[in-house]
């Protein structure tokens, strides 16, 4: 016996309408919690993108001129590597710089097209032994006037602050999101329990006349799924609306080359996928638990 689609739609619809206030509450909770999940994913991805070269320990970057000669580069490298105040040096050549550029600006193909590896500067990412601002400043300035050096850019306090804040923000939002997801789960569970209570006589008669357990269960399962999906869809819409706002977040001068706190479309897409999947899971799990616990079939 196939369960008829129009039956499921009718029953699910009337269940949702019957408990409209609780249904709205659980959808909104799903929405807010998933929005927070998406928001924290976007912020942390954006910060990661924008501060990529300022990984932990990298205090300044020496950018070479695009037309710097091999000798100039290797002379700077030799001095950096031999300096007792430098712990580690990472060289980023033109093609690596180009790869990074392509990835960060994958949303703007025309910008990527206008750039070739040749015009991008190679650079040294320097981790000094000490984090003492004065020492780092003095060390970096030694290279400022060297032949072939375009510019020395220091990891400013702002960048460090943003990295720190974003990691704390991400953790904080993740905690809140998990709590809200738990609340959403319980609310969905409760709406379905109430729907089942409201229909207990119908369920009793259904059992009496030989309806299969799945026939009785499916409308309630679909109800939970609908709540999860609608909440997730609303969260995604909110994120789509808010995304441009993230992208012009950080002051331009702190990030001379890759200025904006951006996520690429591909990254945003995957964040939406994660949110959609989590929404479906929350709905299905809530409904599944409710159906097995409260529907004595």
């Amino acid at each position, binding site marked *: *016996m*196939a*369960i*008829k689609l129009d*039956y499921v739609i009718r029953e699910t619809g009337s269940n949702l309408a019957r408990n409209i206030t609780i249904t709205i509450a659980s959808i909104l909770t799903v929405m807010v919690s998933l929005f927070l999940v998406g928001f924290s994913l976007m912020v942390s991805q954006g910060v990661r993108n924008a501060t990529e070269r300022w990984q932990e320990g990298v205090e300044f970057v020496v950018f070479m001129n695009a037309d710097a000669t091999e000798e100039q580069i290797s002379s700077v490298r030799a001095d950096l590597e031999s300096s007792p105040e430098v712990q580690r040096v990472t060289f980023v050549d033109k093609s690596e710089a180009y790869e990074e550029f392509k990835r960060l600006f994958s949303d703007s193909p025309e910008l990527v097209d206008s750039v070739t590896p040749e015009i991008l500067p190679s650079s040294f990412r320097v981790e000094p032994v000490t984090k003492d601002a004065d020492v780092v400043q003095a060390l970096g300035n030694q290279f400022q006037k060297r032949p072939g050096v375009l510019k020395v850019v220091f990891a400013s306090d702002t960048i460090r602050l943003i990295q720190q804040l974003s990691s704390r923000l991400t953790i904080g939002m993740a905690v809140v999101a998990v709590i809200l997801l738990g609340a959403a789960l319980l609310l969905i569970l409760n709406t379905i329990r109430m729907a089942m209570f409201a229909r207990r*006589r*119908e369920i*009793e*008669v*259904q*059992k*009496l*006349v*030989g*309806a*299969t*357990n799945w*026939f009785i269960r499916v409308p309630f399962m679909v109800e939970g799924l609908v709540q999860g999906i609608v909440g997730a869809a609303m969260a995604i819409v909110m994120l789509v609306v808010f995304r441009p706002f993230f992208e012009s977040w950080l002051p331009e001068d702190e990030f001379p080359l890759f200025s904006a706190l951006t996520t690429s479309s591909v990254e945003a897409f995957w964040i939406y996928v994660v949110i959609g999947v989590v929404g479906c899971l929350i709905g299905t799990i809530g409904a599944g638990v409710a159906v097995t616990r409260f529907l004595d079939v």
Partner: protein
Amino acid sequence: MIRLEHVTKTYKGDVVALRDATLEIEKGEFVFLVGASGSGKSTFIRLLNREEVPDAGRIFVAGKDIGALSPWKVPFLRRNIGCVFQDFKLLSNKTVFENVAFALEVIGRPRQVIRTQVPAILELVGLGDKASRFPHELSGGEQQRVSIARAFVNRPLVLLADEPTGNLDPATSVGIMRLLDRINKTGTTVVMATHDRGIVDTMRRRVIELDRGSIVRDQARGVYE
């Protein structure tokens, strides 16, 4: 059609609802279950419908050992068993037609079948002109007719009735009994638990008397006591 072999059912607190019951009911029989309240009549009915499972012994309905039936097969057993209750168990937000159609809908009958069978069964129970009424607009006797229509629309092999006239006045009860008798004459086995002395004494059918869970009398063409 129905066979019980040494069936015992005990509820929590050592209440013995049915003790070592053995009996056989043939296809097409009409059986009254009588006995005081708490004598085990309802448990008997619930065991046949597999709302309860026996603690010991075996119950066969239509050749199947229903105690050994896996839970997912229970709905298919119930499609062969119609049930009628003292409180009708009608859905108040559905019309007479919808209440009866519900029984066919939930077992996946096509709409075409529902459209032809429901009016036919309502005609049979004498409610052909009340299809679009709601249960609260009907008298008790009419409501019980709707519930019988719902139980019988699927043409079950067995009709179980737990005090179907318990809420009805004697004149109305007679009408309900005529209806059950007609259903029985189509070959459906009817098992009816009742307190109604007048009905049992008038109908003169097989009477099984229960006393504190034990079968104390099984009499063909019997009387209430």
